[in-house]
């Protein structure tokens, strides 16, 4: 682990100790199985207690964890025969959006996702997962392709938001996001969207109009970042931790507001501690959702998708 979050330190300390003990046992040829088991138990307890009492800000940190599995990790674990496809056929290729075709449990599907890097170099290459218009337009091209070939569409959402830059504005960031939402709203093929990290604002929603919208357990989905919320409403970006608790951004909050369908459990300790187990859990959830959707008539599918988004917030109207 390179990045240890402050509240994870007790877990990390125990894990280091366990590793040391193991090395020591091998080197000296002594049996420390019992001692190691005791420590492992302790580590599990500490992990469970920390991870069952996370506050919203801690969840933000886990959702943004640099080692959190990204779309490429899920592709590796969940799909076979992945062919990445590039470019929007209009301007260029956006490396912060990954898309292609692959096989999921025997079935050909289209895969899309934002891609954050795991280190600075990768992040610079991927623009920290913040897409330009060409990223959304590449995505739209692949969405239409999925429709043409009757492939289900699976979207992995993980972005701080759409990129706020000059080129992005010149090339129509607003139009690209709006049209991506429109394209998804009327796409005649099943769509599953999963928030695997950070679901930041319009840039996330551009991939988020799914028949099923899932969130991993320690992820966030928000109209603006906690930093943005604090800086605009309180004129103080340093109150981000407080903001995180305020405006309902965790998977659990968002589920309660009726915006997503399901929370997918992560292994204790978070996805970044066990990407493989996370992928397994997510694969199961995707598979279940897909089975439901594939047995639905396409006309009914689009009608239900409409009703699903039509109902957003309606429970709160007076």
């Amino acid at each position: 682990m390179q990045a240890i979050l402050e509240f994870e330190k007790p877990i990390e300390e125990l894990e280091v100790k366990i590793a040391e003990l193991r090395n020591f046992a091998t080197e000296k040829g002594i049996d420390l199985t019992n001692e190691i088991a005791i420590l492992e138990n302790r580590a599990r307890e500490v992990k469970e207690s920390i991870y069952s009492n996370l506050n919203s800000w801690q969840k933000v940190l886990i959702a943004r964890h640099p080692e959190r599995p990204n779309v490429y990790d899920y592709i590796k674990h969940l799909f076979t025969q992945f062919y990445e496809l590039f470019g929007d056929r209009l301007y260029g290729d956006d490396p912060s959006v990954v898309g292609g075709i692959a096989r999921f449990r025997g079935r050909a599907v289209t895969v899309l996702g934002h891609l954050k890097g795991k280190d600075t170099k990768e992040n610079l290459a991927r623009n920290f997962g913040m897409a330009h218009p060409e990223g959304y337009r590449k995505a739209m091209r692949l969405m239409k392709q999925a429709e043409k070939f009757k492939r289900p569409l699976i979207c992995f959402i993980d972005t701080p938001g759409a990129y706020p830059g000059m080129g992005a504005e010149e090339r129509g960031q607003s139009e690209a996001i709006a049209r991506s939402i429109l394209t998804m709203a009327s796409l005649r093929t099943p769509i599953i969207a999963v928030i695997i990290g950070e679901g930041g604002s319009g840039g996330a929603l551009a991939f988020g109009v799914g028949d099923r919208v899932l969130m991993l357990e320690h992820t966030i989905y928000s109209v603006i970042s906690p930093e943005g919320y604090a800086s605009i409403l309180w004129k103080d970006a340093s109150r981000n931790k407080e903001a995180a608790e305020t405006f309902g951004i965790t998977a659990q909050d968002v589920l309660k507001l009726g915006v997503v369908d399901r929370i997918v459990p992560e292994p204790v300790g978070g996805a970044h501690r066990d990407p493989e187990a996370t992928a397994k859990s997510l694969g199961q959830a995707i598979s279940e959702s897909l089975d439901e959707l594939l047995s639905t008539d396409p006309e009914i599918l689009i009608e239900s998708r409409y009703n699903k988004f039509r109902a957003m917030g309606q429970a709160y109207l007076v």
Partner: protein
Amino acid sequence: MVLDFFRKQKYITVQPESENRDIPEGIWVKCSRCSEILFNKELDHNHKVCLKCGYHFRVPAHERMEMTLDEGSFREMDAGMLPVNPLNLPDYGDKLDSAVKKTGLKEAVVTGEGSIGGYPVVMVVMDARYMMGSMGTVVGEKITRAIEAAAAGCKPLLIFSASGGARMQEGILSLMQMAKTVAALTRLEEAGQLYISVLTDPTTGGVSASFAALGDIIIAEPGALIGFAGQRVIEQTIRQKLPEGFQRAEFLKQHGFVDMVVPRPQLRAVLTGLLDLHLREEI
């Protein structure tokens, strides 16, 4: 400037008013761009466009209805829909109260039916005075109902956007209004109905990135700020000042995202012409 003020007075064509004379701020207003002192009545006659520099003042929703629709044709829809506070944020309740008091509106959008040059339309007007015209649950719902009414009643849809974007105080539900309104536009598409999107100052964030960007025809008012990201956010990201005119209506047109930039005094005529082409056959 003061001299200007008195000199201009001679040429004023408005009738001498008896009622507002004793309320000075009701008589004149200073142009926020060129600082010219303008008579309110004169400004109103010029569709709230500065007579000296052409600056387009922001227009309250009901005034926009009046200046755009045929006289007496407006029938408001969902007039009674009240603002909501789904996350129960204490300071949001206060903000809503003061916005209601300040504008006399219940929410940041007014919707209804009316006619332009005799052609029936469904009309949506956002009001930037009400919490920057931000879109929360109620704004999204009213706009969605208006779009659905246009689709069901086979009437063209006109949306005048004026909004800083999604309303943060309603959290993720505000973001979802983007999906809700855009999904409703698919109904209009199926019905083969015309949608004219008019972008007024400002149209940014979640509103610019949803229904506002999707008109069959997109018109912008001169000088209107239109864009996805806020200018300060962009400047902080790229660490440089933005050039003059960036994200203004003319810039959007130059980059291919707006069909026309129409000065407000000509807007009603342009809308009438477009409606005529869509609704009346000559053969």
